[in-house]
Structures are given as C-alpha cells and as structure tokens.
C-alpha cells in the first residue's frame, strides 16, 4: 500500500516495532510522538478513529488505536505501551479527535488508565453502579 510506504518514510524514525499486513499497519509509538502521529492520521490524511483497544500484558498496559483510512480500506494502528501499571497515564487525543471522548473514558473506567488532558476524566460504564467495580478488567485488581 502506498499510504503505508509514505507513512513509514515520514515517521520511520519515530515508530518502533512494525507489523505490516496487506491492509493493516500495527506499530509501536512512544508517547512523545503520539499526538504528532494522530494529527497526521486524523487531520493530515483524513483517517477516522474506529476505536481503541486496551489490554494488560506482562510488559505493561497497552493501548492500540484503530485509525481507518476509509477511502483506501486500510487501518493504521499505533500502539502505546505504558510500563507503570500502578499509575498508568497517557496523553489524551480528544483535543485532536473529539470522537475519542467515550473510548478514553471507557479505558479509564475498566482499566484505570488516566488520559491527561481529557475534558471529563470519569467513569463511562460503571458511573451508576451501586458499588464501584474498581477497574474490573485488570489482572491484579484491588478490592
């Protein structure tokens, strides 16, 4: 895909491990380059944020963003790895992508990841729960 080639030429030095498939590009990005890359994907080439996936691994907490370039039918997936599991924080992309407001709140709610700069960093799904479930999808969840 030309779009993948162009992206890797532009940001080759700012991205880490890459997994490329015919229509998917998964790549690791450091937090300091996240907003620059999101700005390029969303404002620069017109990607749409489908959603983001959080997962806890033994290395830390992972956030995988899924940006769809609809006109080409391909996905750019920047991956952020947060090694501090006790106090996970990452920059919010909501200032660039208003459509990320709910998914960042959901990741805060279920995984305990704080998004710095989010306009309303509070629970999304468990806001009205009678008892606070306290990050229910984490491995070592504290009761």
């Amino acid at each position, binding site marked *: 895909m030309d779009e993948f080639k162009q992206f890797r030429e532009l940001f080759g030095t700012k991205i880490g491990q890459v997994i490329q498939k015919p229509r998917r590009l998964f790549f690791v990005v450091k937090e300091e380059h996240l907003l620059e890359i999101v700005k390029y994907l969303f404002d620069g080439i017109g990607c749409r*944020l489908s959603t983001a*996936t959080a997962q806890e691994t033994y290395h830390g907490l992972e956030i995988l963003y899924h940006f769809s370039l609809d006109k080409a*039918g391909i996905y750019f*997936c920047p991956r952020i790895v947060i090694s501090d599991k006790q106090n996970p924080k990452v920059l919010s992309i909501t200032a660039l992508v208003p459509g990320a*407001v709910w998914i960042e709140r959901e990741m805060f709610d279920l995984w305990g990841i704080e998004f710095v700069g989010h306009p309303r960093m509070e629970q999304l799904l468990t806001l009205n729960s009678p008892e606070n479930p306290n990050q229910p999808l984490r491995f070592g969840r504290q009761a």
Partner: protein
Amino acid sequence: MTGNKIPVGPFHPLLEEAEYFELKVDGETVVDIDMEIGWMHRGHEYISEQKTFTQSIYLVERICGICSTSHPLACVHAIEDIDNIEIPLRARYIRTLVGELERVHSHLLWLGLAGHFIGYDTLWMWAWKYREPTLQMFEAISGNRNHYGMMRVGGVAKDVDPAIIPDLLKILDEIDRKMEMIAKAAKDDPVLKSRLVGVGVLKKEDAIAHCVVGPTARASGVAIDVRKDEPTDAYDLVNFNEIVLKNGDVYDKLVVRVLETIESNKIIRQCLEKLKTVGGPILNNVKEITPGEGIGRYEAPRGEVFHYIRSDGTNRPVRHKVRAPSYVNIPSFVASCKGIPVADVLITLAAVDPCYCCTERALRVVDAHDRPFELDLQRLSRTKTEQIRREIYGK
C-alpha cells in the same frame, strides 16, 4: 429562564432500552445534552476471552438481536484476518445474502419505529407488515427468524437449498414492489417532510469530528461504507449504489435507509441468482489460528461493526474488542441536539437508530469483594432499584 434540566430516561416510553439523557434547556430550546450509559450489564468482551473461537461467534451473535449477523460476520472477519483465510465462493454469496437480508429487516424495523415516534402509525404498520416476509426468508434459509447461526471461520454453517430459491425470489418481488411504494410515499409525504426536514441536523464537519458511521454519516454527506471501502465476502462481485445525502437531518436519515433497503434488495437478488449456478464447498476446514492479531469489520444496518481479536496460538482469543456503531453515533447527539426544541429531541435521538445493548457490550461487574455480579443479575437489579428509591424518597 436558563439552567433548567429535563431528564429523559433511563426508562422512557420512546426509548426501547434503558439510557439516560439530561437536557439543559433555555425555555423550549435545548442548549446542551449529557448522556449516561451503563444501565445494562453484558460482559461480552470478557466472556469471549473464556470461550473458544467458535463459541465466541455464537456469543457475539447475542450482543444484538437486530445485528445478529453483523457481529458474528465482523468476528469471523477478524479471525480470518489473522491468518488471511480464504472463503469459498458459494459461502461468500451466502454471507452477503444473509447480511443484506438483515439490513432490510433492520431498516424496516427502524422505519416503523420512526413513524410511531412521530405519531404516524400508518407508516409503522406498513413497514412492519412488509418486514414480515423478510423474516420468513430468514426462516427458510437458516431455520430461525433471528439469531441465524450461519457464520463460521472459513465459510458458513448452512447451505441455501437451491430448491427454495424460486420461492425466495417470489417473496423478494413482493418486498421490492412494497419498498418502491414506501419509498415514493416517504419522499412525497407532506406529513413526514413537515415533521422531519431540518430537524436534528448533524453537519458534515461534526459527523467527521465525532467519527460517526453508517446511515448517520452518509445522511450528512460523509461517503463511508465498509461494503465499498473494504469489500469482503461477495460485495466486490455485486452491483449496488452507495446512498449519500447531504443535509444531515432526520428526514435525510430516513431517506438514506429507505433507498438502502432498495439497494439491499438488488444485492439479495444478485446473490440468489448466483446461488443457482455457483457450486462448491461452503466451508474451508480451519484447524488452528496462529498467534497474531486481526481486525474485522462489517457494514451493519447502523454502520460499521468493528471487532479486534488477538490470538496467542491457543483455541481462545486473548483479547476480543467489540465496537458497535451506536457507540460512536450516540455521542454525536451533543452536536445534533443543541439548539433544537425539546419536542424534536426524541426523534433526533431515534434517528441514529441507537442500540444501547450493543453500546454496553463491555462491562464486567464485580462487587467490592471481587465477587462477580453477573452471576446474579436479579440481585444487581434489586440493589439498583433500592438505590434509586433511597435517592428519591430518602429511605
């Protein structure tokens, strides 16, 4: 007078499911809207990670009663994306056939509800009357009117008997005639136009900013459709038009859906004709899923359904992410409801065809002592009712 708040929900006659909206109003005009979700407790993502890949397909079929083909189809696309699994040609046509039948019945369901919401019950009865033959087609093909159980990794579970195709085509002729009639009626009807034109407008720039999908995006001039953008199954083998309008109001959302139903009928007809001649297997034997990650999506009636699956080489997904279209469409109410009269809010909310049980697919509830609540939903319901009673009556 400013600063007044009007609650809508969480249980409201015009919301089919539980959801809470808080309207901030200045007189009759809505100046802001807040939304609270989390009123239903599902846990599909978590449960899926305890199931095998095949069981997960059945599980995600239960996320939504209306999109009960879209979720399994996106799920198998995600699993197939991990290993680039090929699908037999006959299975590709069957998948497309079932997916488009779902679109027809979903759009007719919404059309009926929309008519009912604005007090136009003739439209409601028409739409639901003509939805019935679509469900009969489903029953003939899969044995079920809902939850068809057709999708498998590598193909489909059940073949379409060539002997029933002539009968299905007859039913389709009847639906086609009625849809043409409804389309003409909807486009010319002064009642619908006077009630819906210019109501709840979602501008194109707001649609892009909120990343909305499906008819909600296409009614606002955003030309996105997974069937065209990343054609899977037989979508690159059939002819159909992508319906895109530009005004973004409730009327355009209605017209998009009505015209899409006609396009879906065209696709169904092409698939049925092909199934008369295209033979071969319907399922490739997939023995294992290698470690890796895959993205699958499908254009559900409400928009793109997104599934992400990560495999570690065992027979279970280690991570299964599901994003339903309503999850991105509902927050766009912030843009479409501001500045409209209170009386227009409910039809504006209904115009994105929100599915709240899809939206809340992720939650796993445990209490403070790590005991899972999901095993005792009655207790959860009682606890919540008691809490609401305490808040209202102070006891």
